[in-house]
């Protein structure tokens, strides 16, 4: 009969641990996506005062000429400096699972821009042809949104754009994007400026130099930053998940602590005579205390184990949330990293210790004679 109570308490702890893992895995996935985006040699240039590629007004064509000729830039096979003028737009697409529509980022760039992101590879179809209304979608977008298969079209600018390929971004933030030709966009929307410019330096030292040079040049009114820094700042996307998630985890954790306490008190009461006998044999109070705390810990760790196993099937599941920097969906996957597992274990250990301490203390304090007589 006592087994039943133990199993139920462990299950309660398992539920709490499941929620902790779920939330931490979401945040770890988000962090991963943004941390793996960007090359250390790349410098992103935005208009001064703006913190998003989505901002209006950006880099004028004249400023672009200046940027193109800066020293320290890497060159491509044809000997041209690696500088890519880009733009970002947001369009609404319907989700495949029928949960409504959401904003999706489209990045417009040139073939040079493609060359500067070697991690992004085409997995189906082909890249867009410059000068055509063609787009290439990421594998995640292709999975999550309706009307994004090769051959489908979507309307924006002055006409319909056809999907001609699917790319894999290697788990980076580009997984949330659709890519298309920048010059076609400029023609469609009569744009004379780029919203951002990506430059590739020869090495990280030159990248730092380029960044400072762009930011310090008063004529340009531009701001340079490392591409990696720009994406790292977008980890703030997980803010709401973090706040709500921790709130839920802590409240459920406290509930579980009280439940564990209940079970442990019952165990102590049930074994009152046993404890007294142990004391008579010569076990000290501290060792009784430790044994009950350890028992409670074992219970919590058992729960944690069940929780971890329960969450395993969800590892790698992709989902999305809104990115406050681009106002569109950031696609990411749940990642049960070792760090996440550790955190869940620590959470369980805290629950087990707090739940077991008071009953264990009571057990060690009981009068031997009174207990034996019970």
């Amino acid at each position, binding site marked *: 009969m006592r087994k039943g109570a133990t199993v139920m308490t462990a299950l309660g702890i398992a*539920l709490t641990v499941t929620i902790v893992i779920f939330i931490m895995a979401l945040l770890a996935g988000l962090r991963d996506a943004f941390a793996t985006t960007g090359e250390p040699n790349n410098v992103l240039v935005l208009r001064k005062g703006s913190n998003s590629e989505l901002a209006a007004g950006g880099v004028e064509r004249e400023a672009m000429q200046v940027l193109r000729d800066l020293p320290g830039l890497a060159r491509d096979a044809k000997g041209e400096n690696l500088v890519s003028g880009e733009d970002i737009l947001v369009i609404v697409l319907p989700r495949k699972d029928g949960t409504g529509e959401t904003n999706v980022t489209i990045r417009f760039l040139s073939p040079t821009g493609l060359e500067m992101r070697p991690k992004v590879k085409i997995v189906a179809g082909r890249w867009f042809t410059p000068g055509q209304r063609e787009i290439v979608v990421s594998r995640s977008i292709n999975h999550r949104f309706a009307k994004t298969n090769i051959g489908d079209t979507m309307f924006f600018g002055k006409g319909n754009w056809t999907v001609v390929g699917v790319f894999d971004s290697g788990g980076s933030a580009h997984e949330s994007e659709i890519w298309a030709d920048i010059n076609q966009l400029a023609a469609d929307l009569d744009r004379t400026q780029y919203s951002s410019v990506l430059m590739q330096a020869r090495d990280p030292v030159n990248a730092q130099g380029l960044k400072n040079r762009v930011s310090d040049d008063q004529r340009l009114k531009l701001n340079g930053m490392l591409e990696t820094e720009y994406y790292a700042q977008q980890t703030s996307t997980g803010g709401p998940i973090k706040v709500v998630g921790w709130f839920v985890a802590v409240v459920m954790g406290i509930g579980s602590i009280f*439940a564990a306490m209940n*079970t442990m008190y019952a165990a102590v009461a049930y074994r009152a005579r046993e404890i007294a006998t142990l004391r008579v044999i010569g076990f000290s109070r501290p060792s009784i205390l430790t044994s009950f705390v350890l028992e409670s810990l074992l219970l919590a760790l058992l729960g944690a184990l069940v929780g971890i196993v329960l969450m395993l099937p969800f590892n790698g599941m992709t989902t999305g949330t809104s990115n406050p920097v681009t106002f569109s969906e950031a696609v990411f996957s749940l990642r049960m990293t070792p760090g996440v597992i550790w955190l869940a274990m620590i959470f369980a250990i805290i629950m087990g210790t707090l739940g077991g301490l008071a009953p264990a203390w009571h057990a060690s304090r009981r009068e031997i004679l009174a207990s034996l007589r019970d």
Partner: protein
Amino acid sequence: MTLTRFVTKNAFRNKRRSALTVVSIAFSLLLLTFMITVWRAFYIDQGSAESAQRLITRNKVSLVFWLPSYYREKIRALPGVKNVVNESWFGGQYKDQKPENMFMQFGTDPQEFFEVFKDLHITPDQLVAWQKDRSGCVVDAELAKKHGWKLGDRLFIKGLIFPMNLELNVRGIFTSPQPTQSIYFNHVYIDEGFPALKGRVGFYGVLADSPENVPKVAQEIDEQFHNVERPTKTESEHAFQLGWIAMMGNVKAFILSICLAVVFAILLVSANTMAMSIRERTREVALLKTLGFTRGRVLLLFVSEAVSLALLGGLIGTLGAAGFIRLAAHAPGISFFLAGVSVGAPTMLVSLFVAAIVGFVSAFLPAYHASQLNIVEGLRHIG
């Protein structure tokens, strides 16, 4: 001794166990009440009667694409449309990036803004003052209170999206049934500060002549701007807001799964306690039956004991949630989501109902076993 008294006495015979159970259930129900409240605020609350009459017209491709300003008069000419006002989201920064300094700024037309947003109230003289000052703004009363703004104050807003900054004079403070977290200024300011955007509008707020006409008006507007370079998408204000929530991700599934986990957790806790306490009383049950208590009576006794414990926990939990939400609505970081949200009586009732059901289910099986017990067996039981 009456039956009720018997049940209460029994419920608290082991004070520590009952207290721990009640507290544990209370925490779980706090969470459940919180989640139901958020669900209601997001998906069920319809807003004020005036908001049911409003529509939002945006560029069909997405909010990021602008609409021409001449659409306004074309929309106004459609049957069923009473008022139309332009709005442009400025996306600026007040002071710094801290979440407590976050609010929205919209450029709009002071002449017609309060005609469309009739549920926002402002005194006539403040309205006139705003209409006269091209760099004036009106601010939400809650925001004004939070930041200590008074009439005549100057607000400096740094443009993040637009390459221009705003220097606004507070000319009016409006009240709203739901906190708007917004300030409104004259759209002319953007037109002049960033001429590249002249003649461009973010979206339109449209007031229909009746709530019934809302779907018809939406259809008319979108048909009017169908085969053009900048097609529109018009939806009710409520649907528009739901779109923002949908962007956060699969919120519905998230809330539902947490609610399920919570309910299951309380079920476990409650069942555990009841199993323990009933097992302890096997001999008593036999005694009660010897005294002439029927099986049904015994069952009833135990079940009502569990239900009252669960209800007590539920009551503490829901009240705790109400208090928590009141506090959190003013805390930085989450206040953006919880502004104007409160735990209503229906939500509390739902939570208590869930608690009662859980109490009932958790006690039924052990209590049923106890009631079926053979008297002689029970008396011989050593617990």
